[in-house]
């Protein structure tokens, strides 16, 4: 599983998390009572505020809802279960769900297990140009049956690291609006991708400003480094408060039979951090530290490959964003990397940028160079 690593190749507990955990441990007034079914109120409100922005019209107009969930996966699953029951009529088993090619491999399972029978793919990665296949993507959206559900990566697309530009997002939104397609955002890397919370949430907020009703599954695993505490949030944006209230009441029923109520520890850490201006600033700083290290590794890797004269173009390494990069290495080259150089990537050529350190950059660059020159 993908997790951030320091330049020493070690896991990193964010300093602000350590601080807040100590605060929680010292607070003897806290107990372990059940949270409400939908989660810790301070967590829910703050988590959604992070995604939508302090000045979000949807928040001002009181037409948002939040469901604290077990990680981003849990948020996706609750959203999926709700959509299958309530989206377009009362039985959406036949409603098409579109997932990008490629995508996080668990997306498919989430929607299958939620009961959707028609899971389709939409074009996304253009292997030839090592970038976004926008025409293919838009074409699929034009052809999709009206009311289809589209899973969109809010930022730092997993596994390609390739995101639409704002202009491209505008085109996507226009087609989705015209064809009544439902946006279900998966936001697992807000802040972690560019280092800026606002920048990484641009797409979600744009869709909200365009009047969409949407879901956004948020994960705090990476940007808070709280992987094993399962901190996630499903943000619901609706037309008005009444609709959102009814949606939440039904999501409550779904939560009740899945996990009853969510775990307390991680939500407390996040809520405490986000609701304190000082801690919030510290957190943003910690997030930027992680994002900057990844960005640095990207630029260092690219410059080494270009210095080595490795055949091909390598700008995609710095144009891509987030934890992962689609190097463009083919399966044979990947096999070489694994077997001969003991560098582990996925068969897709996906590399985890967090695995790069100042100590291994040279080795990795040379190995890629060898793989590309020796193996066709």
């Amino acid at each position, binding site marked *: *599983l993908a*997790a951030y690593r320091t330049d020493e190749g070690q*896991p*990193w*507990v964010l300093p602000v998390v*350590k601080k807040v*955990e*100590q605060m929680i*441990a010292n607070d003897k007034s806290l*107990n*372990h*009572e*059940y*949270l409400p079914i939908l989660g810790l109120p301070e967590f829910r409100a703050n988590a959604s505020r992070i995604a939508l922005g302090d000045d979000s019209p949807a928040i001002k107009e009181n037409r948002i809802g939040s469901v604290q*969930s*077990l*990680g981003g*996966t*849990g948020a996706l*699953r609750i959203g999926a279960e709700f959509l299958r029951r*309530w*989206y*377009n009529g*009362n039985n959406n088993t036949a409603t098409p769900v579109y997932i990008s090619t490629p995508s996080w491999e*668990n997306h498919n*399972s*989430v929607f*299958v*297990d*939620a009961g959707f029978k028609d899971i389709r793919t939409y074009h996304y990665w253009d292997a030839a140009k090592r970038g976004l296949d926008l025409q293919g993507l838009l074409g699929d959206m034009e052809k999709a049956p009206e009311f289809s559900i589209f899973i969109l990566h809010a930022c730092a697309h997993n596994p390609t690291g390739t995101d639409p530009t704002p202009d491209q997002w505008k085109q996507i939104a226009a087609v989705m609006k015209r064809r009544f397609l*439902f946006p279900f955002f998966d936001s697992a890397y807000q802040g972690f991708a560019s280092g800026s919370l606002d920048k990484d949430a641009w797409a979600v907020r744009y869709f909200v400003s365009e009047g969409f*009703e949407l879901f956004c599954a948020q994960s705090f*695993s990476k940007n808070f*480094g*709280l*992987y*094993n*505490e*399962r901190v996630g949030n499903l943000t619901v944006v*609706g*037309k*008005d408060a009444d*609709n959102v*209230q*009814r949606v939440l*009441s*039904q999501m*409550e*029923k*779904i939560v*009740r*039979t*899945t*996990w*009853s*109520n969510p*775990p*307390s*520890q*991680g939500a407390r850490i996040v809520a405490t951090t986000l609701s304190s201006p000082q801690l919030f600033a510290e957190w943003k700083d910690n997030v930027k530290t992680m994002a900057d290290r990844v960005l640095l590794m990207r630029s260092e890797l690219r410059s080494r490959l270009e210095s080595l004269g490795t055949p091909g173009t390598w700008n995609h390494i710095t144009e891509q964003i987030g934890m992962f990069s689609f190097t463009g290495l083919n399966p044979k080259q990947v096999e070489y990397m694994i077997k001969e150089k003991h560098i582990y990537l996925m068969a897709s050529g996906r590399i985890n940028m967090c695995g790069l350190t100042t100590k291994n950059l040279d080795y990795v660059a040379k190995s890629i160079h060898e793989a590309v020159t020796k193996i066709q």
Partner: protein
Amino acid sequence: SSWWSHVEMGPPDPILGVTEAFKRDTNSKKMNLGVGAYRDDNGKPYVLNCVRKAEAMIASQKMDKEYLPIAGLADFTRASAQLALGENSEAFKSGRYVTVQGISGTGSLRVGANFLQRFFKPSRDVYLPKPSWGNHTPIFRDAGLQLQAYRYYDPKTCSLDFSGAMDDISKIPEKSIILLHACAHNPTGVDPRQEQWKELAAVVKKRNLLVYFDMAYQGFASGDINRDAWAVRYFIEQGINVILSQSYAKNMGLYGERAGAFTVICSDTEEAKRVESQLKILIRPMYSNPPLNGARIASIILNTPDLRKEWLVEVKGMADRIISMRTQLVSNLKKEGSSHNWQHITDQIGMFCFTGLKPEQVERLIKEFSIYMTKDGRISVAGVTSGNVGYLAHAIHQVTK
């Protein structure tokens, strides 16, 4: 217009409704007997000392926050299995079981229900005792199974309708799924005696039923973890390969930390491995992997001899206080001059008590005395204290005399 115009408002949770009304009540003598969480004799939530100690150990260890495996914290799942099965259990020692960490009792039940839906081919029917925990039905239904019932509680005697249960169970179609509460039946507090469990095991075996035990109160019921697990262990000894859900919400007071486990007793270790692989495939698209905090606290307690000893004392303390409140309630009712037979209050066990009060009487308790409980007459004995047991007895007598 909205996508959600046709979405109905979900019905309000009946138990939550009780708490909401309680919160609004300004009567200083008010009592919340709907709460499904333990309270100490001051009516306050109780964080166990062994939990605080385990937390201090965790804080000092400064561990990382890396993902747990899908099946959860291994030290926790192993200790959970041992706690339920007993360290001398052949099934435990041989390793012919799989235990995965679950999101407390609910999450463990749901993983099991999903597993049955996908892999238990002979039947879609789950037989629940009448009555059962309110959430059992929607859990199994959402998992895609069907619900049936067997007689269990006798409202005339406020105790077990054993002949009715045996009669119904003996007629359950073979290879159906039957759910049994291992101890401290929720909501009635009525448990079979060991002799009755033996007969239940025999009929269940004869009908070749798949037994699903829900054990949410081990240690919390009688104060003795071995005694509370007796039925589970007996069934397994009889060659019944049960499946089991455990919760640490009550017995360790870890409610909001969601510590639980789901276990499948298998024919052998090879089968256990195959079952585990399928459980992981079910869990990954639900929440990927479970939360660490509660499981780590529970694991430290179970695996650290001094803390485990301390826990056993504390869980007995909680059980003893509940038993003492039952006793005091009955003696106070006698003192009030009640001529009714209230023996069921002390015969029943665990957090909950089916008082036998009728809806109209419950209504009066709420309106006239600010004593809040669910309409079925169920009280949470955990909400009774030595400070308010007299008031409770007085009120019950007023509405039943």
